[in-house]
């Protein structure tokens, strides 16, 4: 039972720069052809490729073996090539070079709710989504009751999806995904959304799956998820494998690299479809060596940069602070403000952030009325490096890092009697 379920040999994927940025029109092709000779003069070997087209390798030289029943975690910063690798393995896109061999029925979850149609009912969408994921009709028939129970939408199963709340839609999408049982499962960071209680439930289900002898490749930014689910981890960096091996070892190395401030990829990659996008975040006050490190107690100022490609008339904005176990520690929301096109800063003034030292994550969202425009789990993590004033044993330390004053003094006997009386 230890045959290689996935074997890859120097996989590489090259994109033309801007290829994903927008679609071409014939006019582009024509103007490109007209400018091409000129461009050749300009480029003149400066960037290597003929004709002046520039390419980037999103993935290069990726070779690894995964045995049947193993759970592999893929970690790395945004743009490190994790998702590209997953897309190649799930055959959504082709590699430019190299090969991969996969033994077993593959299913990929790069997104939940793929193919959901708002006009169709919950029941119809369950079948449709299941079929798109790769389940047969009979398989869905068999699991249907379970899926509906898991999603907690039994009363609305014959209502069109457009009348569902976004939470209900998400739950149904997850429920279908969670009941999808291919021999080899490729999962992108789909668990990062949805409400927390339900996320836990899904994680529980994933854990069951992981321990049922299924081969899984799992992308996540949540190191505690990775620790809980994976036996092996590959750390991707700049499109190549930086380190591969046992989970504890690789995750440890990754975390210490992040902690030592090697978080250059602070700026998000442009995604052209979004009306607006969070670009980066930083702690303005107090200044530390790293803009994501909080090393002093007391008042602080945070800043989130948002690039609005077009004006948003009725913007809503939410922020949440999560700890490493994905517990929501604090959150607030602002309703209905106007956002012009252009780059804006969202500034928060907090009197204090008295949480115990460790890694935390901001999640910021931007809505245009009901529509989610952008949701970002801020990278890098917020690292709180204040002096701990909590219990020295972690399990007793709790969440808050609040200084306390303590004194012992004898109490006059008459007061004691009063109390007891």
């Amino acid at each position: 039972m230890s045959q290689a379920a996935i074997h890859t040999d120097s996989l590489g994927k090259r994109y033309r720069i801007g290829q994903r940025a927008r679609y071409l029109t014939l006019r582009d092709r024509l103007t490109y052809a007209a400018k091409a000779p000129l461009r050749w003069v300009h480029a003149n070997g400066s960037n290597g490729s003929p004709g002046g087209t520039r390419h980037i390798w999103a993935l290069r030289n990726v070779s690894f073996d995964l045995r049947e029943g193993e759970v592999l975690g893929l970690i790395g910063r945004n743009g490190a090539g994790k998702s590209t690798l997953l897309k190649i393995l799930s055959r959504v896109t082709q590699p430019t070079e190299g090969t991969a061999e996969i033994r077993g029925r593959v299913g990929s979850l790069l997104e939940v709710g793929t193919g959901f149609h708002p006009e169709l009912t919950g029941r119809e969408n369950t079948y449709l989504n299941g079929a798109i994921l790769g389940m047969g009709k009979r398989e869905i028939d068999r699991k249907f009751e379970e899926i509906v129970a898991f999603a907690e939408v039994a009363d609305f199963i014959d209502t069109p999806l457009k009348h569902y709340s976004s939470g209900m839609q998400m739950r149904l999408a997850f429920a279908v995904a969670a009941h999808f049982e291919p021999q080899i499962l490729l999962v992108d960071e789909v668990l990062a959304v949805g409400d927390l209680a339900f996320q836990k439930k899904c994680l529980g289900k994933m854990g069951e799956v992981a321990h049922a002898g299924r081969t899984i490749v799992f992308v996540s930014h949540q190191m505690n998820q990775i620790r809980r689910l994976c036996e092996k981890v590959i750390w991707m960096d700049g499109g190549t494998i930086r380190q591969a091996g046992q989970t504890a070892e690789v995750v440890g190395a990754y975390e210490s690299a992040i902690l030592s401030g090697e978080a250059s990829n602070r700026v998000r990659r442009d995604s052209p479809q979004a009306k607006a996008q969070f670009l980066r975040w930083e702690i303005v006050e107090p200044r530390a060596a790293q803009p994501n490190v909080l090393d002093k107690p007391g008042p602080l100022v945070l800043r989130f940069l948002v690039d609005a490609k077009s004006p948003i008339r009725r913007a809503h904005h939410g922020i949440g602070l999560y700890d490493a176990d994905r517990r929501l520690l604090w959150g607030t929301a602002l309703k209905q403000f106007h956002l012009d096109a252009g780059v804006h800063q969202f500034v928060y003034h907090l009197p204090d952030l008295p949480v115990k030292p460790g890694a935390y994550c901001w999640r910021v969202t931007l809505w245009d009325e009901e529509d989610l425009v952008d949701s970002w789990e801020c990278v890098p993590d917020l690292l709180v490096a204040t002096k701990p004033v909590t219990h020295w044993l972690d399990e007793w330390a709790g969440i808050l890092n609040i200084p306390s004053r303590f004194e012992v003094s004898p109490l006059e006997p008459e007061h004691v009697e009063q109390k007891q009386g």
Partner: protein
Amino acid sequence: MAATQTQVAPLRYTHEVPVVRIAARRGWTALDLGELLAYRELLYFFVWRDIKVRYKQTVLGAAWAVLQPLMTMLVFSLFFGMLAKIPSQGLPYPVFYYCALLPWTYFATAMQGATNIVVEQQRVITKVYFPRVVLPIASVLSGLVDLAIAFVVFMPMLAYYHIVPTAAVIWLPVFMLLAVLTALGVGLWLSALNALYRDVRFVVPFLVQYWLFGSPLAYPSSLVPAKWRWLYGLNPMAGVIEGFRWALTGHGEPPGMLLAASSAAVVLLVLSGLVYYHAMEGTIADVV
């Protein structure tokens, strides 16, 4: 929560474990029929979705499948028929036009649907693998339901004009197949091109219009000089439309030469479409 937690079914290892080899595609192939067969259930679901969704939130619903050819038939009968007095092979104008509009309405909608399907489904395409050719196939198949509905009105029309279909009617499935394949062939080309160049979406309405006048819709193909008939037949819809008229009413001649030329053109169209589409398939998720 414990109540809803379920046991994960043990894996059932079949004797043949499917092995997939992933590499950059080289060379030209048309279609992997075995794989398409393996995905027939997904094809069925796509067709089913298309049909379910088409007339949601419309007041008249499926009646549109009848209204479209019916309205055009009225306009054609009035202008081309009663005013321009175009010959109609001895058929009453409504029958003459409706016969032609049955396959034409199907073709025009199916072809446009297939052209847009890749762009419409880009979210699915960029997230899940399946043979991409399933999409245009599903799109042209789902249009057949409309065609079937449009037939419902045609039957009383024949009865009203006392036209009894002859034995030629057994040829109807052949012409239907030809119509489906024509829509598919054009759809394969245009949907792949549309993924690359969004200009296609603006070209299609013109294409449909020109194609309409290049087909024996408003006039019988007998108006085309006999020595050019084969060239005219290279438009597959010429064979399909004349075929429908002949098969449904028994009027006119069996479209021999026209059918031969149209069939040849369709085979070429579908094969080249498959090759082009298949070549695009690997990178479609990157460019759409």
